[in-house]
């Protein structure tokens, strides 16, 4: 029987990937240049239009709004579409069946493109949730979820209709991708809408940080890694025309990878207020992840072994070999950066940025190009238009990546070292933050240059593919197949995955390993002993019956539902063990003695502006438990002035940040000015902030922060505040009962009071005509005042006398403290 594959869908996805790839990378180059040349935030338009456009900055062009656009475009539009092209192409062939539903494929394709378009519009408008790679607003989140479900149905339906009894390793990775992304995306986007474009996440502070990085880390794992590994497993042996290196390595590294990856999220929060046990888990699991990751690299590279001659002649192999090598490099760097001591230096610096780009440009970008060059001649039944142009693309891209990554290493290490450097008398820090920025100017230029090279290389690719498509004609592949009898596939139920010796042994080891971490004093040692006992038993059982265990896995591969369920269990365990205890611990008391002061309505409005402008892209609000952090950002004379858990308990969403292109802001705020119930005085005066938003360089020479002229024109949305306060109340922030009018009134009063402090000394160039009370009344309605209100509130808290009677069962840190200090237990401390 002859069947025709649906190759239109992969064709479409591939074209979409190339187009969005160009856009995403271009935005990346713009964002990169903004960091070394602040005028790129809009000011440059003045010179290129000879003064026709007169501005210090344009809202939709600023770094804080473009950076999320760049990351989302590259992850979801470029790699997303590339992944779908590869999945649709290879799944049909591995199943010997046409994709189950053309309609669903169509909905998937157009739905996904519509979402991307939605993102490209909303993100520059400042509509964002601020959680990294989950910035899209809630209506788009729902759309993503629905389209993902369509994809899942289409995929699993195709599996069900397959004419191949057993599932090839590429499909295991696709399965893991689909179920895990669904789980991560839904949980991390649980939120309460306050309007069509705004919402608050249901998690706040510590919980939000944990959930977000569980998601953020595994977006890298299950969106940028596992599907591409699947693609590697199909396209590399195809292109090299050689067998895959090792089947059993596939098995071991697949299960180890999906199980371990999910636990590594907390390595994004090392040395922060995150409880110690979670930090320790994050680091240790990251180290354990090294070998499984390299298992994938080995299976890719060693498949090419013996075929290296093709490297010289076939650009596809060149791209794949380099892509897999970069995968190996970045998955070695990842565990390295997860070591707490290394992380002290690297975190919040450009080293991390270099790391993700060696993954994104090296692994994702090169694998994508290799796949495109292999697919295009087959999808359009012709030869690749130009091999030499593909080669040129390869070398341009490679030089681009190397420049980029080397520049980011230099910048990251330089800045990390400078920030921690003590002055010659050992009494304080040697450098101001801005000194470190000036020191890494040159690496920043090189980074922009490297990124530009990469973009140019990708443009060669786009042109080459376009020419190839033009010279050929779109065709759909066909295959001769023998329909598979029903009983040869999917004959096993779910029960065997719980009753077979192999899984039972593994479950036992895992169960006691978990108990080991949570059991109170004494029980932990017992559980540890049980882990060892069950591990030994498992090894012995395996040794005795290798064939039985191997047969069981083979059978699993002929039954897609049990395989999927087992994969889901493997990925669900890590998240459950890390997140659920944090949700069960009594949140109100888990504050380490410091309770955050509630935001007033105006301060909340300012906070939402802070998020909308993407300030978190450059500013953290987290003083780590490290000497340089406390000295630079803590208050004078307070030795334990690192950020405590309770200081961000009312932060929906959390704002601990992931990169410091500017200084930390955790202690920016301060107490109320004496005799004033609305005006606060933090590290800096209102007037300082006013001038700083207008022209950062006037107050901080050398700063690369954009100017924010529109904050002085746009009005604060006072009307939205009652709805927002209502949502915050539902989330558990103890606001007193206030009517809608009272909320609005309170905000307006505070705005007026802050504007009052500025009216005599502030000068607003765009409204030179205003002064005194007129200026006050004008400013009181503007966003800048709300923003200043937030700045002055940042990091304020009251000392809390709350004590815990006994340790929480689900908090290892408290158990540990109870062990060490048997007397009354203080509020949780690590």
């Amino acid at each position, binding site marked *: 029987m002859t069947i025709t594959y649906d190759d239109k869908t992969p064709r479409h996805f591939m074209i979409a990937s190339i187009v969005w790839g160009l856009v995403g990378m271009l935005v990346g180059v713009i964002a990169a240049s903004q960091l070394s040349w602040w005028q790129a935030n809009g000011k440059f338009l003045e010179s290129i239009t000879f003064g026709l456009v007169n501005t210090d900055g344009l809202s939709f062009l600023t770094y804080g709004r473009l950076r999320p656009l760049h990351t989302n475009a590259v992850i979801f539009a470029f790699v997303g579409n590339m992944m779908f092209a590869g999945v649709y192409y290879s799944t049909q062939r591995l199943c010997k069946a046409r994709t189950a539903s053309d309609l669903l494929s169509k909905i998937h394709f157009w739905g996904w493109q519509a979402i991307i378009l939605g993102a490209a519009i909303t993100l520059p408008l400042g509509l964002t949730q601020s959680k990294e790679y989950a910035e899209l607003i809630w209506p788009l989140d729902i759309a993503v979820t629905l389209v993902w479900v369509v994809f899942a149905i289409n995929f699993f339906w195709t599996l069900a209709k397959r004419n191949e009894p057993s599932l090839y390793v590429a499909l295991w990775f696709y399965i893991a991708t689909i179920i895990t992304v669904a789980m991560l995306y839904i949980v991390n986007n649980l939120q309460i809408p306050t309007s069509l474009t705004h919402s608050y996440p249901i998690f706040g502070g510590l919980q939000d940080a944990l959930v977000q990085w569980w998601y953020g880390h595994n977006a890298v794992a299950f969106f940028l890694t596992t599907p591409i590994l699947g693609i590697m497993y199909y396209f590399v042996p195809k292109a090299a025309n050689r067998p*895959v290196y090792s*089947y059993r390595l596939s098995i071991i590294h697949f299960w180890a990878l999906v199980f371990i990856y999910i636990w590594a999220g907390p390595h994004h929060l090392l040395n922060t207020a995150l409880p110690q046990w979670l930090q320790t888990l994050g680091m*240790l699991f990251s180290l354990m992840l090294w070998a499984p990751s390299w298992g994938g690299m080995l299976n890719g590279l060693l498949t090419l072994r013996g075929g290296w001659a093709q490297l010289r002649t076939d650009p596809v192999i060149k791209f794949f070999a380099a892509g897999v090598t970069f995968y190996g490099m970045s998955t070695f760097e990842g565990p390295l950066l997860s070591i707490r001591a290394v992380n002290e230096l690297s975190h919040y610096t450009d080293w991390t940025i270099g790391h993700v780009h060696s993954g994104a440009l090296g692994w994702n970008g090169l694998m994508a190009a290799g796949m495109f060059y292999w697919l295009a001649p087959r999808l359009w039944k012709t030869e690749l238009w130009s091999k030499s142009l593909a080669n040129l693309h390869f070398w341009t891209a490679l030089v681009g990546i190397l420049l980029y990554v080397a520049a980011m290493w230099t910048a990251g290490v330089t800045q990390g070292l400078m920030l921690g450097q003590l002055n010659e*008398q050992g009494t304080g820090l040697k450098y101001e933050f801005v000194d470190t920025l000036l020191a890494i100017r040159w690496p920043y230029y090189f980074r922009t240059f490297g990124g530009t090279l990469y973009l140019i290389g990708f443009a060669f690719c786009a042109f080459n593919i376009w020419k190839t498509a033009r010279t050929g004609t779109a065709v759909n592949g066909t295959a001769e197949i023998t329909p598979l009898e029903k009983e040869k596939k999917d004959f096993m139920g779910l029960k065997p995955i719980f009753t077979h010796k192999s899984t039972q042994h593994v479950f036992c080891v895992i169960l006691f390993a978990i108990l080991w971490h949570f059991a109170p004093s004494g029980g932990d040692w017992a559980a540890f002993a049980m882990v060892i006992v069950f591990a030994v038993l498992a090894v012995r059982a395996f040794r005795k019956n290798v064939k039985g265990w191997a047969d069981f896995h083979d059978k699993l591969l002929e039954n897609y539902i049990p395989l999927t369920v087992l994969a889901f269990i493997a990925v669900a365990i890590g998240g459950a063990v890390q997140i659920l205890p944090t949700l069960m611990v009594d949140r109100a008391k888990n504050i380490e003695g410091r309770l955050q002061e509630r935001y007033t309505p105006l301060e909340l409005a300012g906070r939402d502006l802070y998020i909308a402008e993407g300030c978190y892209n450059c500013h953290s609000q987290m003083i780590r438990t490290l000497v340089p952090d406390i000295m630079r950002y803590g208050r004078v004379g307070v030795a334990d002035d690192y950020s405590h858990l309770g200081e961000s308990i009312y932060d929906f969403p959390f704002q601990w940040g992931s990169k410091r292109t500017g200084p930390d802001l955790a202690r920016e705020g301060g107490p109320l000015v004496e005799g004033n119930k609305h005006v606060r005085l933090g590290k800096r005066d209102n007037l300082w902030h006013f001038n700083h938003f207008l022209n950062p360089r006037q107050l901080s020479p050398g700063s690369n922060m954009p100017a924010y002229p529109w904050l002085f024109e746009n009005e604060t949305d006072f009307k939205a505040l009652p709805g927002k306060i209502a949502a915050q109340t539902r989330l558990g922030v103890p606001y007193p009962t206030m009517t809608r009018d009272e909320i609005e009134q309170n905000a307006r009063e505070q705005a007026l009071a802050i504007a009052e402090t500025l009216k005599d000394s502030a000068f607003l160039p765009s409204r030179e005509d205003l002064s005194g009370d007129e200026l006050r009344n004008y400013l009181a309605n503007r966003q800048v005042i709300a923003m200043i209100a937030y700045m002055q509130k940042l990091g304020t808290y009251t000392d809390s006398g709350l004590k815990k009677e006994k340790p929480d069962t689900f908090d290892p840190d408290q158990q540990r403290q109870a062990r060490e200090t048997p007397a009354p237990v203080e509020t949780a401390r690590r």
Partner: protein
Amino acid sequence: MNPENEPQEEPRRAAFATKKGEIVIRPHEYDGIQEYDQKLPNWWLLTFFGAILFYLAYWLVYYQAGWIKTDTEKVTAAITDIQNQKKKALEETLATLDDQTLVQEWANNPEIVASGQQIYSTVCIGCHGPDLDAPLKLGLSLVDGEWKYGNRPMDIFKLINEGSPADSTGMAPTGAKMVPWGATYSPKQIAEMVAFIISKNPDDFKEFQN
């Protein structure tokens, strides 16, 4: 290429491949893709099992046993050390400093003044302005001949080091005060800043010239 698939009584599997040097190819083929079943490299196994053992050991030593100080204990002690060091350095510097030395030696040394200027134009400039006249009114002018908190060089040293005095009303209308720059800068650097300020106001400090 298409390696031959010899028919076998029993499909050769993992157990078989462990025999050294034997490369087994799996009987199954997926869309033309075949799979070897090679033994896992020893160094890879070592890495994998090594990381697992490291996990067990690290958790026991660093977490469970409680032998190692926690982060917060460590960092609080380190910060306290630095504060003591600072106290010591301040005493040592103060022992060598007085109004006359600052005016006659420090303010007349171009290198010292240049270092002071360097710091001034990084941090002080924001509030006191490029010409020291505080055009934005974020701080006091440093060239108007008025020295609100004392006109002796050592008063200025103390002011920069400790910030605006506790009883000062600060700048109207919010009462903003200068932060204690001693938190960031060493006593030596603060003396350099003082030298720079003196050099910009030679007439105000004439009396300390001899």
